[in-house]
């Protein structure tokens, strides 16, 4: 299974026949494994990594440090879940250190993010403070460099 996952990790679009050939198994078996991995939520999805700004669509990303008052029995989980469900929120992590949650928000404008923080996030019972950092430029995103495609510098024929 982990071999299959490694093959898909950086290219979710690898065709089934190719996967089957590499792993020396039938397409049917691979398909079944994929279903299992999806059902067990080991594979969470098959997103496409897009540089929206390059595509001409404005996106603003903010990294928000959030401090919370933990709640009895559930600790940080209930509030983290509540925050996670907002569409604007791309990622939520529980952190060690000076703050509790790192919330990554993506929206079309600064104004939209400000609205989200002031009206939604900061007003949640248990959120004691927020501190926002706006992303200026991505250099690498989820393991992928964002710059131009790298050329093959090798000679056409070499010993």
């Amino acid at each position, binding site marked *: 299974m982990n071999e299959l996952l490694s093959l898909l990790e950086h290219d979710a679009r690898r065709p089934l026949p190719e996967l089957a050939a590499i792993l020396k198994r039938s397409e049917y078996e691979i398909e079944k494994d994929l279903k299992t991995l999806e059902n067990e939520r080991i594979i969470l999805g098959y997103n496409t990594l897009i540089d929206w700004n390059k595509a001409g669509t404005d996106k603003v990303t903010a990294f928000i440090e959030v401090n919370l008052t933990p709640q009895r029995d559930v600790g940080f989980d209930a509030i983290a879940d*509540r925050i996670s*469900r*907002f*569409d604007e929120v791309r990622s939520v992590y529980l952190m060690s250190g000076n703050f509790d949650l790192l919330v990554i928000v993506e929206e079309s404008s600064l104004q939209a993010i400000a609205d989200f923080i002031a009206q*939604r996030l900061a*007003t*949640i*019972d248990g959120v004691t403070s927020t501190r926002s950092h706006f992303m200026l430029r991505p250099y690498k995103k989820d393991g992928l460099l964002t710059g131009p495609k790298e050329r093959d510098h090798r000679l056409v024929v070499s010993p």
Partner: protein
Amino acid sequence: MSLDWNARISPTVRAVPPSGIRKFFDIAAEMEDVISLGVGEPDFVTPWTIRESCIYGLEQGRTAYTANRGLPELRAEIARHKKEQHGLGYDPKTDILVTVGVSEALDIALRAMLAPGDEVLIPEPCYVSYKACAMMAGGVAVPVPARIENEFRVTADDLEAHITGRTRVLLIGYPNNPTGAVMRREHLMELARFAEAHDLLVISDEIYGDLTYGDEPHVSFAALPGMQERTLLLDGFSKAYAMTGWRIGYALGAPELIAAMTKIHQYTMLCAPITAQLAAVEALRRGAKYRDKMVAEYNLRRGFIYRGLTKLGLSCFEPKGAFYIFPDIRSTGLSDQEFAEKLLMSEHVALVPGSAFGDCGQGYVRCSYATSLEKIDEALARIGHFLARHT
């Protein structure tokens, strides 16, 4: 000794037939592996931001009654929304009533308008409540069959044939459940002239208004020249914002009519639940992008199911609104009831016989495409399998 319940139940209520939709769902509910194209509600859950605003309201202790007419901030948002959508001006203080779904609005509207024996023109096929509500309000429901040649749009000529001295109200619902038909401006203008000529009040149920596909946006009946005063516009949150279970709708109309409806509403319902009203405020403030996303998804499925059914040889017109398609199944030689029953029993696909929506729905079935593409695909395959044995 047991009571004679037949004599104890009001004759008005006894005269109302039970809903033809429910019967099927009781059978389908017992089956495993059923694909349902029978459900008249979105398969999306309410967008989180709307749900969360309700949770927030509860945390803040917003649990009391509201004004009879609804939260002032909700009425203000509704007024703003209708201004933006159709350029219509409604005064939040006098022209708007927030109700428990459009269902309640329809009920109290008819009760406010009708004297015993007054007639209501109801184009069919139509939503199952229209006739029943008119009857329970003491009125007489006069069904007017819309014709397939007109893609199930009702025309002034159709209506003219049913007008009498007792006709008081015209009740229309476009985009239409169950046919997916829409009325464009020119079609509505014809009805507007008809309503004016016969001095009728018009109830326009526009709950599917946001679910209109293609380049031409939905035209509200109230926005036609001279029609705002005689039109009671009904709308709600169930379909566009996937909020069916919240039960929240609203009526917009002349202050006198809204005041009369409010009188019934305050004595019977008091107010719509505050939790749902708070969520509705959020839907109007921040829900548009989620609504648009859902509409885009329905549109995708609409094309898919239309092509699928046509390819299977079932004739149907391309629906332009709501999330239903209404194929003609007469080529199978089965009645719509038989078709729906046999399809459910042999292929485990649930849909609703057209006759549940009026006699002129006979020979048609309603398929809802408020379900995932994957399921629609499977349902089409099963219907294809079924048709192979019945044509």
